């Protein structure tokens, strides 16, 4: 806590806050609002009921109308603050409404009914977190299936990506062979090809292989990434060749050298690539959309998209789903972010 306080009260120099301090904090605050405002709104909105979402003007916090159980009525009745004709205001529960006339009762004395113009009553509101949004998405839709599909693709694709890219990087950084640099340049130069250009060829290949509507059809085409090869190769260049020589003298096969020496020592770079890969796979939309057309194979991203109906959209469920979708990547990023900075720094410069 103390360190957070120190960080937030850090100033330029020792004395009073300089105008640059105000400027810096203002700028940072603006950035914070710009970056986190929408996310915060999303999270808060995901706790709103369907009715609260449709309200205008919208509220920042998930307010809902208060309701009370009234004797003689099966369901709880909405509570209103009513201005009675005699000028007094009371909190009454609405029994029914016909046209512009509402019939209300006192929750404590439900026998007497008041008839008022609807303009004389305002809803009584309080904070209501509609956690049902979250529990219901698991029950009502096959959200669990989508989640599993997404997790499966992300985890498996990341593992394969790490393995394949590390093997390529090992060969490109530790073996001397003709055309090595040419191969490396070729791999790097594929960065210049936008994915949309190879969309159709990729689709044809996947289709020929019979991988349409299969999670593997999403996994395989993207496991070899030039970025991953680059990050890992640059890092592996910093591993001393003498270690490999020593391992060779120690009777290690090339695979064992890779598995027991190179991979453990490349852990920081592997962590970086793992983070990237998880984010890419988890957030991937276009490719799964093309490959997967059956609902039971949908990933979360596709499910979110499919959830926007043509006529109606159940926003409260959609928002809750979106929050759940955001969570894993956020967690991965929060816990592994230190590797991103160190890994990128060491991958770039020796």
């Amino acid at each position, binding site marked *: 806590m103390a360190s957070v306080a120190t960080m937030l009260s850090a100033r330029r120099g020792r004395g009073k806050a300089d105008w640059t301090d105000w400027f810096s904090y203002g700028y940072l605050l603006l950035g914070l609002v710009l970056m986190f405002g929408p996310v915060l709104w999303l999270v808060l909105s995901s706790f709103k009921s369907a009715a609260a979402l449709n309200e205008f003007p919208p509220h920042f916090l998930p307010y809902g109308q208060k309701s009370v159980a009234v004797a003689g009525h099966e369901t709880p009745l909405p509570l209103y603050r009513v201005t009675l004709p005699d000028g007094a205001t009371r909190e009454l529960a609405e029994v029914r409404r016909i046209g512009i006339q509402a019939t209300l009762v006192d929750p404590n004395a439900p026998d007497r009914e008041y008839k008022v113009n609807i303009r004389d009553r305002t809803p009584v509101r309080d904070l209501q977190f509609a956690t049902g949004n979250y529990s219901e998405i698991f029950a009502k839709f096959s959200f669990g299936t989508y989640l599993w599909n997404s997790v499966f693709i992300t985890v498996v694709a990341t593992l394969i990506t790490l393995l394949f890219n590390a093997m390529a990087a090992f060969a490109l950084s530790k073996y001397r062979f003709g055309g090595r640099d040419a191969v490396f340049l070729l791999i790097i130069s594929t960065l210049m090809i936008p994915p949309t250009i190879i969309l159709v060829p990729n689709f044809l290949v996947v289709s020929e292989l019979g991988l349409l509507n299969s999670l593997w059809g999403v996994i395989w085409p993207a496991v070899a990434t030039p970025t991953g090869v680059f990050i890992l190769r640059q890092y592996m260049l910093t591993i001393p060749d003498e270690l490999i020589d020593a391992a060779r*003298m120690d*009777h290690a096969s090339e695979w064992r050298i890779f598995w027991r020496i190179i991979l453990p020592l490349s852990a920081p770079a592997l962590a970086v690539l793992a983070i990237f890969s998880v984010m890419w796979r988890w957030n991937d939309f276009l490719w799964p959309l093309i490959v997967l057309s059956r609902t039971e194979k949908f990933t979360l991203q596709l499910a979110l998209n499919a959830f926007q109906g043509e006529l109606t959209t159940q926003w409260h469920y959609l928002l809750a789903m979106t929050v759940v979708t955001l969570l894993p990547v956020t967690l991965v990023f929060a816990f592994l972010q230190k590797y991103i900075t160190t890994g990128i720094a060491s991958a770039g410069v020796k």
Partner: protein
Amino acid sequence: MAGLQLKRVAKRYGATTVIHGIDLEVKNGEFVVFVGPSGCGKSTLLRMIAGLESASDGDIVIDGNRVNDVSAAQRGLAMVFQSYALYPHMTVYQNLAFGLENLRTPRATIDAKVRGAAQMLRLDALLERRPTQLSGGQRQRVAIGRAIVRDPTIFLFDEPLSNLDAELRVQMRSEITALHARLGTTMIYVTHDQVEAMTMADRIVVLRAGSVEQIGTPLELYNRPDNRFVAGFIGSPQMNFLTGRIATIRDEGARIALDAAPHAASDAALPVRVSTATVEQRVLLGIRPEHVTIGAAQAGSLHVTAKIDRVEQLGAASFLYCTLSSGERLTVHASGQVGYTGGEQMTVNLPVSDTHLFDATDAETAVALR
């Protein structure tokens, strides 16, 4: 344990030849040191023996078998690297056991061997540490231990002591020598430090620019260097070289007149083969600083007048750095403490029996005239 033979072994990188056809025979159990200035190819030669570099030409024979096409792992050698090359993510125990695991040795055998080696090298208490938690000397011992556990036929050392401080280096030097005495295994040791070579080797191989300059026991190299390079490389401080010419040649040998004292030929003759030397031939006279004596002219010596530039008193010995009338420099190693100071003139004797004569007509090779 095994012997090693190199037959016309050469290494080329493209058009550049870095090892020029080396012949060498290392006997079983011998401690051979490759010594030479940096860039002379000694490490490359060692890596070729190890199998980490391929030989462009010639044969590498271990125990009678040509191993040129045998991989490093299969040659049964062990190597200690300059940087130790310990696996940083493994504990000392795992570092020692790695090679045996690769050979699919039973776990119990691995454990026994690792603990045995650790005990021999006093690493018992460090087995669970990682290399980063060890001092330089301890890392060195782990590196040696990693070589020992595999019972190699030949140990290869690639400048293993160059990363240690001076005191530790002396200590590790004697530990390696003791290890050799205990194991009796053939060892090949690469260094650029002639003191290490002199103190440890059974035989020294002096290399320069990819060629062998001389092979011999430490004292052979010290007493009878084949050429100026070996003479200058072995011994510290370096041997003095004075230019001169052969004044006369008779049956008993040649008499030399130094440029520093051109009119006084030596009163004793140096034995040279008449076929290799001619009168008036330019020569280099080499004499080690410790053989130069100060004071009144003595029989059997060359005498020169030297001006003292600087005196270094070490207590047990003194070094006098002088300039001769020819402008050449002369270092004198006097035992004990001397009363001279810089600027003084003195007469020094160069006992003929302790001098070495080199052919100066080819300054590059400067072969010894005997």
